């Protein structure tokens, strides 16, 4: 454990922070309102090159750039580019949202996500979690001009996020008192070598789980999700649902695999009631919702539960399919929210499900896209959602938790209703909607790309599955042979 300071390893984060500060300082003095979009977009493209070509290495013992963190950063950057494109489309029609602060805060939140993904130290993970969450609290509240309840949603999320940070800090204190270090590989090694009481470290992990389950919206802490999702600007809702959950799940997998490896099976057993309740409550509460964004918020609670099923099976493949599920969920979420941006631009009250009746008569392309994404969310075969659910349930059954898998499948059948109801209203109701529309290129690129990926991953997921499995393999290697 040494202090080696290769600044070239953190070059990506430095560039993002500098450019985001530049956006904040100069946006008031520039006349062209789209200036900050161009800068943010170019920064994200540069960020993809940097994530591919940054040298592997350590920046002190706390930040490590290797294959796993580069691949996970690439996934996050891919999602962020699509969200930036669809934000451009959204901000053309909703002009009261302040452009400079919007893109600058998204870049800061991405820096926090990168820090979480490459951290090897519990305190650095906490730092990244706070840096990722604070800009999002402000981004939700930016919607004040169009929806006065956005302050309520943002404040609810802020208070529950602070509660989560409280739990994480208590867990950190317990870990430090009993082990003496925060670095993840050393916690596992001290657990194995010295006879430290397993139950106390399990208690510390339960506190971490409490903090992370607020970000992932597991059940005792899910109440912020519907209000925050409904009242935020639509692209920001997709940012919260996709990138923040992906980062939190990947970090939780890393903490379990590298930091608490001897306790894997016990952690899996204690997660069972939380995950089953999450799936049940997420699916049941989505049935009665009339606002499609609220329905998608409850469904995102349920999908985080499905991804958590991979954490219950204590085997390494289960963890990799947990991350794969969150990646597929990222692609689906960005797709469906891009279609909702299109609908919200032209008629705000189209976001209410009974008002969408008869959409398929005049707008077959939009209805087909909604069909693909709703089938993928429900888990219907040729789409990626089915593949992800299949693999997660397969490894759960291989770990001999058959009754858990049975209950989860029952609850997911309940959960198919909200999505199919949307499709029924769009395709089979007899009403007439018509409005003037135009397909901009910033709408077509995210939507077509995500729809294409959803269908391709439904029949041939092996490419991404192999990459994510290699990521987990490298984490396990790091645990057994620390450098």
């Amino acid at each position: 454990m040494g202090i080696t300071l290769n600044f070239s390893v953190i070059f990506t984060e430095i560039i993002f922070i500098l450019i985001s500060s530049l956006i904040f300082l100069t946006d008031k003095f520039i006349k062209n309102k789209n200036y900050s979009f161009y800068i943010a977009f170019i920064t994200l493209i540069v960020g993809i090159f940097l994530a591919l070509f940054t040298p592997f290495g350590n920046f002190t013992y706390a930040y490590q750039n290797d294959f796993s963190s580069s691949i996970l950063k690439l996934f996050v950057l891919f999602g962020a580019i699509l969200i930036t494109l669809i934000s451009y489309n959204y901000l053309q029609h909703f002009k009261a949202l302040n452009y400079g602060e919007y893109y600058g805060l998204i870049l800061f939140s991405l820096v926090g996500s990168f820090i979480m993904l490459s951290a090897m130290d519990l305190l650095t993970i906490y730092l990244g979690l706070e840096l990722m969450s604070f800009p999002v609290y402000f981004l939700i509240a930016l919607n004040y001009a169009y929806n006065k309840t956005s302050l309520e949603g943002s404040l609810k999320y802020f208070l529950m996020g602070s509660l989560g940070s409280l739990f994480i800090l208590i867990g950190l204190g317990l870990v430090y008192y009993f082990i003496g270090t925060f670095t993840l590989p050393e916690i596992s090694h001290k657990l194995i070598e010295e006879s430290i009481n397993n139950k106390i470290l399990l208690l510390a992990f339960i506190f971490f789980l409490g903090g992370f389950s607020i970000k992932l919206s597991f059940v005792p802490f899910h109440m912020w999700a519907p209000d925050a999702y409904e009242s935020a600007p639509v692209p920001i809702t997709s940012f919260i649902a996709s990138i923040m959950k992906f980062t939190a799940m990947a970090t939780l997998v890393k903490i379990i695999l590298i930091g608490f490896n001897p306790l894997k099976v016990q952690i899996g057993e204690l997660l069972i009631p939380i995950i089953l309740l999450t799936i049940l409550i997420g699916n049941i509460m989505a049935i009665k919702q009339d606002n499609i964004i609220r329905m998608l918020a409850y469904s995102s609670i349920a999908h985080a539960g499905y991804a958590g099923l991979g954490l219950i099976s204590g085997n390494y493949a289960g963890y990799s399919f947990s991350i794969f599920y969150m990646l597929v969920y990222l692609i689906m979420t960005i797709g469906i929210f891009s279609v909702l941006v299109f609908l919200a631009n032209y008629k705000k009250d189209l976001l209410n499900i009974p008002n969408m009746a008869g959409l398929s008569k005049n707008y077959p392309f939009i209805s087909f896209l909604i069909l693909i994404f709703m089938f993928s969310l429900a888990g219907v075969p040729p789409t990626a959602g089915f593949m992800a659910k299949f693999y997660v349930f397969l490894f759960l059954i291989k770990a001999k938790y058959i009754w858990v898998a049975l209950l989860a499948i029952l609850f997911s059948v309940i959960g198919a209703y909200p999505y199919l109801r949307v499709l029924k209203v769009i395709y089979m109701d007899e009403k007439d909607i018509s409005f003037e529309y135009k397909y901009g290129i910033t709408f077509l690129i995210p939507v077509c790309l995500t729809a294409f990926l959803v269908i391709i991953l439904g029949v041939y997921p092996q490419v991404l599955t192999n990459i994510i499995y290699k990521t987990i393999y490298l984490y396990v290697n790091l645990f057994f042979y620390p450098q």
Partner: protein
Amino acid sequence: MSIYQGFFIFAFILLALGVILVVVNNLLALRRPYKEKLIAYECGLDPSGDTRIPFRIRFYLIGLLFLVFDVEIVFLYPWAIVFDHLGLFGFIEIFVFMIMLLVAYIYAWSEGALTWE
């Protein structure tokens, strides 16, 4: 325990004194309230009007900015003591910290958070 013994005795006496004063007063004091004794004091007149005044949100904003820059100052004090020992590396590191807070200061200034009305 032997170093902090004096402190614990001091804290305990303070706590006990506070509790005793309030509890004994509650138990032993004479209480004969009547209506004119219990109304709010307004220089001998009858009370009139609303007791609430509008709160200026500016106070909250100034308190928030004070908190942020005060924490910056708190971080600068230990650096100032060991400044010699840290050399050029420590100087550039604290300079980077201050530049990030300078960005926040310029942003707050240009948004008009430092004006009174």
